[in-house]
C-alpha cells in the first residue's frame, strides 16, 4: 500500500513541474512589456523600468528565472497581487474557505439526491419514475449553470423573496468575526441569534446551482452502476436467501454499486471548481472563482498566475488522494499496475 502511495506520488511530480512551467510561460506570453504586465504601471520612466527589471529578476537568463520561480513556489511564495499588494497565497487562503463551503454543500446536494434517486431508478428500470428521473438528469448535466442561477434568482429570490440575491451574509443585521472562513461555523461561533440560519439561507441557492450538473451525472452513474450490480450472482444469492428487498438493495447492491460513483465524485473536484467560477460570479460569492475573474478583469496577472497555480495544485492533490483512497478500498487497482 505504501509502495503504491509513493509510486502514485512520484507520478504527480512531473505534472507539478509542468504546471510550474506553464504558469511561468503564461505570464511571459501576455502581450505587452513584461515589467508593465507585472507592475501594472504604464509608460514608466526608463530608470524605474530598469529598477523593476532588476528587482523582478527579468535581467536574468530564462532558465535561471524559471528555477527562481520554482524555488519561490516551493517555499510558498506565489507572488504579490497588483491590485491589493497582498501575497497571493494569503489572499487564496482567505477566500478558499468560501469556495470549499460552496462546493461541499453543492456536492452534498448532488450526492444526497443523486445516489438514492439513481438507485431507485435502477430498481424500477423502465418504469415511469425511471424515465422521469433520467430526463431530469439529462437536463441537469446539460444545464448552462450561469443561466440556471439567474433564473433561480429571478424566481426564488426576486419573485418569492425566499433567499437573498447574493453574498454570504446579511451585513446589515449580522456582523461577526470569521476566524475559520466557513460562514456556517463562524455564524455558530458568533452567538448572534439567527446568524446560522442567515448563512444557510445565503448558501442554499448557490449550492443548488453548482450541484445541478454533478447531480445529473451522479444519478446517471449510480443508475448504470446499480443496473450492472443487480444482475450479479451475489445479488441473486442474497435474494434467494430470503433477505428483504431493502437489505438486498441497500446493503448488498448499493454498496458495491457505489465504488465507481465514489471515484466520479472525487474526480469531479476539477469540474466543480470550474463551475464555481460561474456560480460565484452570479451570486457575488467571495471565493476563488470570483477572485480569478476579478483578477483577469483588473489585468492582475501575478494574482492570476498564482491563482491558477494554486487551484491546479489543489486539484492534483485531491486526485492523488482519490486515487490512493480508491487503491485502498479496491486492491485490484493497487496491484494491477
Amino acid at each position, binding site marked *: 500500500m505504501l509502495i503504491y502511495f509513493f509510486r502514485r506520488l512520484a507520478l504527480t511530480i512531473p*505534472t507539478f513541474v509542468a504546471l510550474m512551467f506553464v504558469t511561468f510561460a503564461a505570464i511571459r506570453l501576455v502581450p505587452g512589456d513584461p515589467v508593465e504586465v507585472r507592475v501594472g504601471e504604464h509608460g514608466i520612466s526608463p530608470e524605474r523600468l530598469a529598477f523593476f527589471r532588476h528587482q523582478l529578476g527579468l535581467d536574468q537568463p530564462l532558465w535561471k528565472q524559471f528555477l527562481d520561480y520554482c524555488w519561490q513556489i516551493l517555499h510558498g511564495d506565489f507572488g504579490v497581487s497588483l491590485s491589493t499588494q497582498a501575497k497571493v497565497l494569503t489572499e487564496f487562503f482567505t477566500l478558499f474557505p468560501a469556495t470549499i463551503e460552496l462546493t461541499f454543500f453543492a456536492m452534498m446536494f448532488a450526492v444526497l439526491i443523486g445516489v438514492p434517486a439513481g438507485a431507485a431508478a435502477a430498481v424500477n428500470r423502465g418504469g415511469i419514475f425511471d424515465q422521469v428521473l433520467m430526463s431530469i438528469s439529462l437536463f441537469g448535466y446539460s444545464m*448552462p449553470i450561469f443561466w440556471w442561477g439567474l433564473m433561480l434568482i429571478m424566481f426564488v429570490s426576486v419573485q418569492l423573496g425566499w433567499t437573498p440575491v447574493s453574498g454570504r451574509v446579511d451585513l446589515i443585521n449580522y456582523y461577526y468575526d470569521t476566524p475559520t472562513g466557513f460562514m456556517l461555523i463562524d455564524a455558530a461561533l458568533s452567538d448572534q441569534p439567527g446568524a446560522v440560519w442567515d448563512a444557510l439561507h445565503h448558501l442554499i441557492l448557490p449550492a443548488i446551482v453548482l450541484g445541478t450538473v454533478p447531480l445529473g451525472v451522479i444519478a446517471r452513474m449510480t443508475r448504470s452502476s446499480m443496473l450492472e450490480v443487480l444482475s450479479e450472482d451475489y445479488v441473486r444469492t442474497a435474494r434467494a436467501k430470503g433477505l428483504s428487498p431493502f437489505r438486498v438493495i441497500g446493503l448488498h447492491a448499493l454498496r458495491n454499486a457505489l465504488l465507481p460513483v465514489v471515484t466520479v465524485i472525487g474526480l469531479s473536484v476539477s469540474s466543480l471548481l*470550474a463551475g464555481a467560477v460561474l456560480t460565484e460570479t452570479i451570486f457575488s460569492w467571495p471565493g476563488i472563482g470570483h477572485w480569478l475573474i476579478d483578477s483577469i478583469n483588473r489585468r492582475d496577472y501575478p494574482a492570476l498566475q498564482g491563482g491558477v497555480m494554486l487551484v491546479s495544485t489543489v486539484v492534483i492533490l485531491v486526485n492523488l488522494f482519490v486515487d490512493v483512497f480508491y487503491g485502498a478500498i479496491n486492491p485490484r487497482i493497487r496491484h494491477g499496475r
Partner: protein
Amino acid sequence: MGADVTIAVTPDESRRVLAEPSPLAAFWSAFRENRGAMIGLTIVTIVVLAAVFADFLAPHSPIEQFRDAVRAKPVWDGGTWRFPFGTDGEGRDMLSILIYGGRVSLFIGVSVMSVSFVVGVMLGLVAAMAGTIADVAITRVMDLIMAVPSLVLAILVVAILGPSLTNTIVAVTIVYTPRYVRLVRASALGELSKDYVTAARTAGVGPLRLALSTILPNCLAPLIVQAALGVSDAILEAAGLGFLGLGAQPPTPEWGAALADSREFIRSDPWIVALPGLAILITVVAINLTGDGLRDALDPKMRRS
C-alpha cells in the same frame, strides 16, 4: 387466389430476412427505435438548418439596433409580430440574435470537436504505438491539462491571447483534447495485443497504415460518441466564457454573451435573459440525447440494457 399471393410473397420475405443488413442500416434501425434519440436528432437538425439558413430565416439583422423599439415585449406578452421574441436593451431583435447565435455556437462546437478529435486521435495513437518516451510525455501533458479546471484553463488561455471568438475556440479545444487522447490511447493499447494486429504486422503492414487503417477503425465507436457529446460540452463551455465576457465580443451574436449583456434587465424584462439560456439548454439537451442514442446504437451491449 389467396394461395397464389402467399406463394408469391414468401420467397421475397425470406430473402429479406436472410440478407445481411449493412452496418449503416443496422445502426440506423437501432437508432430509430430510440425515441429520445430521434427527438434529439430532430431538434439538432432544426437548429442546424436554422443556423445554415439564418440569412433567410431571421427577420432582422442580429446587430441592427431599432432605437424606436428598445426592449419591445415579445408577442406572447402583448408585443407585435415585428419582433416575435421582443428586442434586447439595444433594440436588437431577439429572434434574430437567437438564430444567428445558433450559427456561432454550432460553429464553435463543431470546430472544437473536429480539431480536438483529429489532434487527439493523432496524439493518442502516437502515445500508444511510438514507444515509452512519447507515451510518458503525452500522458503527462494531458494529465496536466486535466488537472487545471476547464474554465480556469480557458480563462488563462484567453488572458494570454485576448478575448475573441477564435481564441474561445483555441481555449476550449485545448481543454477538450485530452479526452480523445486518453480514449484513443486506451482503446489502441487494448487492440494492439489482439491477433489481427499481430497478423497485420507479420504481413508487413507499416506503422502508419497499421495505426490508421488497421487499429483506428476498431476504436471508432466510443470516439464517435465522445465527439457528439464533445460538441455539446464545447457549446456550454464557450457560452460560459461568453457569459463571463471572455468569449465572443459584441456585437457578435453569441448566446452566452447575449445573456450576460441583458443581466441588468432580469427584473424588468426577464425574457431577454431567459431566451438565450433556453436556446443553449435545448440545443445541448438535443445533442446529448443524440449522443446517447449513438452510443446505444453503436454498442450492442449497452443497447439491451
